[in-house]
C-alpha cells in the first residue's frame, strides 16, 4: 500500500458491476453525513466532496477503477474504515 504512511488516506478499487452510480453514491453520502470534518474521494487527480452524490458521480468511476478516500481529521477514522469496507464489499449489491 502506497499510502500506508498516511493513515488519513486509503486506496480502494471499485468492486461492484455498476461502478460508483447513483445508488452506491447515495450510500457513501449517508455514511459521510456522520463525519465531523470533510471527507473526499479522489480519482485521477480530481477531488470530489463525498457528501455530495452529484460530486461523486462527476468522477465517473466504473468497475475496476482505483479511487482514494481521504479524511481531513483523525476523528473520522471510523467512518473512513466503514467507507472502505462498503466500497470493497461492492456496496452489498
Amino acid at each position, binding site marked *: 500500500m502506497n499510502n500506508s504512511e498516511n493513515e488519513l488516506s486509503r486506496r480502494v478499487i471499485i468492486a461492484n458491476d455498476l461502478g460508483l452510480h*447513483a*445508488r452506491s453514491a*447515495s450510500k457513501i453520502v449517508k455514511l459521510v453525513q456522520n463525519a465531523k470534518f470533510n471527507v473526499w474521494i479522489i480519482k485521477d487527480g480530481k477531488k470530489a466532496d463525498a457528501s*455530495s*452524490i*452529484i*460530486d461523486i458521480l*462527476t468522477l*465517473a468511476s466504473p468497475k475496476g477503477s482505483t479511487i482514494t478516500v481521504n479524511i481531513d481529521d483523525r476523528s473520522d477514522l471510523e467512518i473512513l474504515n466503514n467507507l472502505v469496507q462498503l466500497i470493497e464489499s461492492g456496496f452489498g449489491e
Partner: protein
Amino acid sequence: MDHTDKKEIRLKGINVSPGICIGKAYLVGKEGVDVVNKYYISQDNLQNEIKRFKSAVKRAKDNLQKIIETTPEELRQHIHILETHKVLYKDKMLYGKTIETMEKELVNAEWALKQVVSNVKRMFDNMTDSYLQGRAADIVQVSESIMQNLVGAKALDIGAIRKRVILVAVDLSPAETSQIQLEKIKGLITDLGGKTSHTGIIARSLEIPAVLGLESATHLIKNDDIIIVDGTAGCVIVHPTDQTLIEFGERQSNYERYKAVISRSSHLPAETVDGIKLDVLANIELPEEVVSVINYGGDGIGLYRTEFQYLSRLQFPDEHELFDNYKDVVEVMAPRPVTIRTLDISGDKGLSYASDPDEKNPVLGLRGIRYCLKNPDVFKIQLRAVLRASAYGHVRILFPMISRHEEVLAAKKLLANAADSLDKEGIDFNNDIEVGIMIEVPSAAIMADVMAKDIDFFSIGTNDLIQYSLAVDRVNRQVSHLYQSLNPAIIRIIKHVADVARNNNVEACICGEMASDPMNMPILLGLGINRLSMNPQSIPIIKKTIRSLNFKDTGLFIKDVLKETSETGIMEILTGTYGNILQDMGYNLIKVS
C-alpha cells in the same frame, strides 16, 4: 424530425388498456422549466428568499416521501431511484450551491436554481459514460419538482397541452390523470404503475391505449420522438422503422374498424332470436368507470369491487369517503342496479397496513368475508356506507369468499346491526336491501341449496371457482394450462348452482372472465344463466353474440355438452355447432389483436 438514423427500440410493459396509437411523445413535466424569470433581491429580503427556497425543497421532499410510502410492495424496486432523489434534494452541489448563488448574486431562487442545474447538467453531458449521462435526468427531475414548488404551479398541467400527443410520464397521480382530455391525448405510457393502478383504469374507461410499468420510458424517450403504443400487447416502440410504421398502421385501422362495428349496436337489448332477454352488467373498480358502462350499453353494475379505495394508502378509509364513492356510482346508474361487493382483500392484493406478511398460502387464508368477520369494526364502516348509498338508487350487497353457511348468517347479522345503528341515528337507507353471495369456493357451490334460503342472489366468480375446483394456480406456469373454463367439472358445478337458483327462485349471475368470452355463451345460455357481468369493454360483443343465439337450441345443445368428458370434446362440439356464429362475431379478431 428525422427518425431514420436512430435504432428502433422495443420496450415491454404491462398492457392496461387495449388499442394501438402512433404519435409524438410528450414528456409530462419536462416543459416550461425554461421560462424562468430573473430578478434581483435586496439584501434585506435575501433571508426571506432563502427561506422560500428552503421550504420549496422541503415540500418537494415531503411529497416524494409520501410517494415512497404509498408505493405498493410489488413496485418497491423502483423505490431505490426515489430514495436517491430524496438524498439529492439536500446535495451540496444543488442545494448548497443554489443558496450560495442567491447570496453572491442577490438573485431570486428560481434563477439561482436554474443556473446551478444547468452547470451540473453541462458537467454530466460532457461525460462519456452513458449511464452517468443519464443521471443528469435524475438531477433535472429533482430540481424541477423544487421549481414547481417555488413557482407554486400545479404538479403537472396536462390540461394545457395543445397538440395531440402520447403522454410519457414516470407516474401519473389520480389528479393528473383526471385532467386528460381525449382530443389531446392519443395514448399514455408510464415507468411505474400496473394493471390495477388508477391510471390503468382511467385509460381503459377513456379507451386510450396505455402501457404502464415500462421502468425506463422517460429516460429513453425524448419530446417529439415518434412512438407506437400497442396497449393490447403491452409494447412500446421508439423510433419505429418505416416497415414497423406500416405494419402497426394496418393493425390500428383493423382494430378501429372492428370496434366501430361492435359498438354501433351496443345499446340494443341482449335478446336471443327466440325472445329471451338477458341482463348484461359490468364489473367496475372505480366510480369513473360508470361512464364507459353506460357508453357500452351495460344494464347495471353486477360487480363493484371495492378494494381499490383501500389500496395504496396508509390507513383504512372512513365511512364518509366510502359513502361518497358509492353514492356517485349509484346515482349515475339509477334506476339500474349496482351490486357492491364488500371488501375482498386477497393474496395478490394485500393491504400493507393490514396484512400478515407471513401468511404462506394467502389464497387459502384470511381473505374476503373471513377477514371482515374477524375485523367487524372495519366491516361495519363499509356496511354502513353501502346501506347509506342504498337510499340513492338500486343497491345490492354482495359478500365475497363465502365457504360456509354460518358465514352468510354472521355477515347478515352484522349487516342488520349496521342497519340498526343507522336507524337509531335517523339516517336514510333501504331496509330491504338485496343480499347476495359469491360462489367461488367449491363448498359454497355444493351447499348452494342451503345458502339459497338466506340470500337473494348468487354471483358465480368463475376465476376463483375454477382455480379452487381444479386446484390450479393460473399464474403458475407449470400448471396454468390446466386452468380451463370449459372443463366438464366446471360446467357441472355451474349447472348445479344454476339449477338450485331456478328451483329456489334466486337469481344467478356469472361475473368472472368466463362471462366475457363470446365462445362460452351457448353453454352459459344452455345452463339457463340469464345474467352476466363483465368488464365494460366486453359488453357490446357479448350482447351481439346473445342476439345471434336461439335459447331453445342452447338448451338442447347443453345436453350434448354434458355428455362430454373432456374440455377438448366440449370445444369440438362447440366449434362444430356454433363455429360459424362465433366467427361472425369477429371472434378471431379479438384473439389476434
